[in-house]
């Protein structure tokens, strides 16, 4: 039975999922999806948002019970309808999810011990010395710059994710029957850390570890994955050897023949540089940020590149009044922007979309319409009551304008895919016609198709007269979108680039000077 997108076959797979289906209410998340993982291979599972890959992973993890299907691990067959988390664990499946399931207010050593158990002594006492020594070893092995007794919440999201990865892998070395599944584990990581992680993963694969990577980042798969399975609308559309695939091939698998193609490059936004800057920052010092000078003009996308801890997020938060600056000045249209709350910043025409969408931007159990109007609720006050009919009508318009795919304005936000949720967040700010639009990693965890659409929205914001400040850990994104890019290195301004920049030069500039650590 040769399916259209099938090449080669997996000989003696360690893991097989057979015809797995799963519905949530009226949504069919998986329609008979099958998957086969070869022993000690690196397997890429790809697909757009809503393609069902997260659901498939959760079925494999025993989090969701499938409606039908079978799962076979190491020759043992399970019914996918009754496959539990403990089945998954004892079969050797190890998961690291998109949201790292770490205990933020506990130490690194405690986090690592949470999975494998604490070393115990007399009367059940925890042998802290052993626990910490083990943690130190694991941290060294994974090249994580933390100490065992550091509290995890003091670490960046990237380091937290690496601890989560290390926790899943810590006891796996040498075991050939285990399967490691990384679900968007690299979403929060920057270039060098991704490299560190992929190098380690290759080492494990070479030693016999089977690894499945679920990712939106196509470039990570090229030359890394051995085999790729692509999902679309809950069904497998391709299961192929990855060797000969190029970046474009993989994008095609995800997006499909009639999706937005990769070369849908828009003409660059017109750089209508007014004589005076919209935003002018002088000698700014706050947190890691030291003595920063820059101007941002209406109509441009000003990119901020930098590794984790370079001060990107601190900078944006400070402009939005969330952090008190220690020195320097921020001027908006020539007038000082001395704000110390989001409310004041918004009144001055500043908008900010934080990096952590789930934690700091979305109202998951409220409707799409309510999420869209969160920034302008007051404007619907009709004197006597909220004009909810107008609100819904506006929401429907915005959904069309911003290509938000949802069943309607009354759909709960949590029922939308990550990319569509992000479009809602952008639309929420855009409708205020902000003077300054600040975006912190806006396409994190967003699939290729939705990413293209978000890029269009960002360009449109600039062409409508906003000065867009784009902080991103994705150098390609910065190179493609920005009219200028400033590189932050340890809180200071490193290099700066014009439209001529490319991701490699950005990457190098961001790494410059970070070697001394």
């Amino acid at each position: 039975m040769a399916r259209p997108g099938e090449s080669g076959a997996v000989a003696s797979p360690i893991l097989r999922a057979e015809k797995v289906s799963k519905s949530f209410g009226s949504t069919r998340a998986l329609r008979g999806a099958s998957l086969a993982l070869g022993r000690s291979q690196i397997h890429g599972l790809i697909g757009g948002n809503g393609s069902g890959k997260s659901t498939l992973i959760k079925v494999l993890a025993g989090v969701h019970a499938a409606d039908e299907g079978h799962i076979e691990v190491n020759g043992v067959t399970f019914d996918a309808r009754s496959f539990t988390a403990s089945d998954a664990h004892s079969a050797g499946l190890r998961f690291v999810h998109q949201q790292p399931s770490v205990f933020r207010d506990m130490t690194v050593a405690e986090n690592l011990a949470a999975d494998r158990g604490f070393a115990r002594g007399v009367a059940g006492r925890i042998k802290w010395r052993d626990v910490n020594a083990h943690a130190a070893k694991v941290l060294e092995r994974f090249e994580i710059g933390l100490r065992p007794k550091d509290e995890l919440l003091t670490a960046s999201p990237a380091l937290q994710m690496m601890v989560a990865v290390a926790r899943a892998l810590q006891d796996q070395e040498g075991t050939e029957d285990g399967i490691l599944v990384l679900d968007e584990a690299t979403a929060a990581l920057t270039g060098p850390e991704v490299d560190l992680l992929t190098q380690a993963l290759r080492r494990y694969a070479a030693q016999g570890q089977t690894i499945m990577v679920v990712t939106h980042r196509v470039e990570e798969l090229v030359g890394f994955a051995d085999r790729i399975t692509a999902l679309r609308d809950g069904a497998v559309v391709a299961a192929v050897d990855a060797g000969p695939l190029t970046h474009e091939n993989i994008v095609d698998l995800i997006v499909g023949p009639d999706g937005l193609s990769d070369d849908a490059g828009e003409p660059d936004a017109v750089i209508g540089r007014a004589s005076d800057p919209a935003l002018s920052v002088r000698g700014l010092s706050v947190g890691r940020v030291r003595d920063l000078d820059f101007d941002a003009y209406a109509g441009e996308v000003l990119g901020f590149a930098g590794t984790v801890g370079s001060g990107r997020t601190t900078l944006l938060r400070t402009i939005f009044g969330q952090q008190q600056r220690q020195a320097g000045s921020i001027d908006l249209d020539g007038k000082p922007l001395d704000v110390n709350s989001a409310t004041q910043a918004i009144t001055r025409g500043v908008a900010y979309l934080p990096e952590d969408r789930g934690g700091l931007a979305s109202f998951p159990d409220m409707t799409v319409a309510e999420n869209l109007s969160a920034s302008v609720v007051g404007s619907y006050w009709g004197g006597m009551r909220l004009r909810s009919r107008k609100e819904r009508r506006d929401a429907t318009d915005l959904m069309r304008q911003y290509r938000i795919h949802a069943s309607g304005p009354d759909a709960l936000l949590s029922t939308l895919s990550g990319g569509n949720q992000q479009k809602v967040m952008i639309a929420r700010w855009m409708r205020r016609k902000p003077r300054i639009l600040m975006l912190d990693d806006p396409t994190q965890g967003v699939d290729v198709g939705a990413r293209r659409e978000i890029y269009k929205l960002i360009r449109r914001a600039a062409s409508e007269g906003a000065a867009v400040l784009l902080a991103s850990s994705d150098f390609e994104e910065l190179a493609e979108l920005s009219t200028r890019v400033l590189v932050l290195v340890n809180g200071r301004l490193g290099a700066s680039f014009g439209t001529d920049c490319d991701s490699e030069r950005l990457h190098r500039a961001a790494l410059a000077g970070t070697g001394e650590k």
Partner: protein
Amino acid sequence: MSTIGKAETSPPSEVGRRRVRTGSILSTALEKYGLLLITIGIAIFFSVLPATSETFPTSANLKAIAGNQSVAAIAALGALIPLVIREFDLSIGANLGLSSVFCASALGSGWLPLLAIGVGVGMSLVVGLTNALLITRLKINGVITTLGMATALQGVVIWRTKGNALVEGIPKSWTKFGGGTFLGMPNTVWVLAVVALGVYFMLQHTPMGRYLYMLGSNRGAAQLVGLKVKLYTGAAFVMAGLLVGLAGVLQVSRSGSASAAVGEQFTLPALAAAFLSGAAIRPGRFNTGGLLVAIAFLATLNGGLNLAGAQTYVSDIVNGAALVVGVGLAGFFARQRGQTQDIDLGGGW
């Protein structure tokens, strides 16, 4: 047979989708009105049960239940508003007691009823404001603040009443209002109707209500879209104080007395009803309509059991079980819809 014919003419996926959709409409209706249907079912049950068929379905009994529950329902509306922002107000009952005791004692000293009402409601309002300031300014956890407040108020009330019931000097006109009817319905029910309409309007049709739901959904996001988080958090506790104060003075007019023991019995039923409100009318969201259904549900169940001659401990057990089962079912429905967040408390829990 007709369905088979349909399946042959249209693509199978289409049929499948349609079936799923009717299924989801049914389950949505069940989520919204399930608790109401159960309440009606219970009422029918007690109407035909031999032990209660004589007494339960009489208009006198139903009016008595409605009249008695109005005060509890207003207190529950007071608990509802903080719950919308995922905060517990545990001082509901004690604050109600405070209002009723100070109102009764003012009436007993010969104050004009209107002034006495003002004293009761005003005291509770001050308590709500104090809760608000402690929680938003000193950043003390809401549960701890209101628990401490409840304990302290209990002390104040005992001091004021010296442990006795205040019955003397309460004017006939005021107790007459509590026991009276208007257009065939107890006066307290009319008061409840007005208050409930006001709360519904505030939560559903004003920016204030929307802000409260946003706060409850995601505090961090609410702050970053420019909400004055402290202001609205405080406002929720102040409104709770106001409503509970009103419930307190109504309680005086309903029972003709006030004592230190009055307040505490209101806290848990109010919280239970407020919690159950998330399981009806607008499932997944604590809402006014749901709260009224929840009150009716608990009142019908208890009224029926009472008439059937059940011991008081039975209704305690039933109340507790109803709360847990009701909230559990609401969470189950929410998960069925793929809603990621169950009905539970957000921040700090």
